[in-house]
């Protein structure tokens, strides 16, 4: 866990007593605080790469943080296409990132024989 969590602020009131919850991301256990979105919980756990691009396999992460761009989509409790920036973490939540998909009909990657 990094120190990205903001604990005090000159103007904003930062809630102090948030309960700790746990969730899994790609099968690994992580802690979050009540009120975190999946994206903010992953970020404090040092995870920026939230999914792989379906075709190129390039890592992708949070981009707009308000649910507009769909770049941070994950599978939550087996429901695909959930935006991690606007989905709150709940205790025991199972989060899976989408991985590169096979492209058998693409010429350069086609397997023959």
């Amino acid at each position, binding site marked *: 866990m990094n120190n990205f969590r903001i604990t005090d602020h000159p103007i904003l009131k930062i809630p102090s007593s948030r309960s700790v919850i746990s969730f899994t991301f790609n099968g690994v256990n992580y802690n979050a605080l009540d009120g975190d979105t999946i994206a903010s919980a992953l970020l404090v756990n040092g995870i920026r790469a939230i999914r792989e*691009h*379906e*075709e*190129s396999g390039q890592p*992708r992460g949070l*981009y*707009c943080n308000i649910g*507009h*761009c*769909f*770049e941070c*989509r994950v599978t939550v409790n087996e*429901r*695909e*296409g959930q935006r991690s920036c606007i989905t709150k973490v709940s205790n025991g939540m199972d989060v899976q990132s989408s991985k590169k998909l096979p492209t058998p009909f693409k010429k350069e990657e086609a397997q023959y024989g």
Partner: protein
Amino acid sequence: MTKDVIVCRCEGTTLEEIATIAAEYQCSAREVKLRTRAGMGYCGGRTCRGFIDYIVSHHSNHQELTLHHRPPVRPIPFALFREVNDE
């Protein structure tokens, strides 16, 4: 540099590809979209739509906006899609 500038993040289409196709075929934004898949990925063009319109309007004779909005305006599961279209 334009070949390294991805415009459509979903489909990985670059500025160079879109500009080249628009100039070569002198076509509409819709045709550019069909030829390059720019704007046809998961998000439905929510981030790149304006860029595609802009590139096409400057590289092709087609000036009018052809990328209209159609429901659903967000990606949705098939179960919901049926509900949206059954009405």
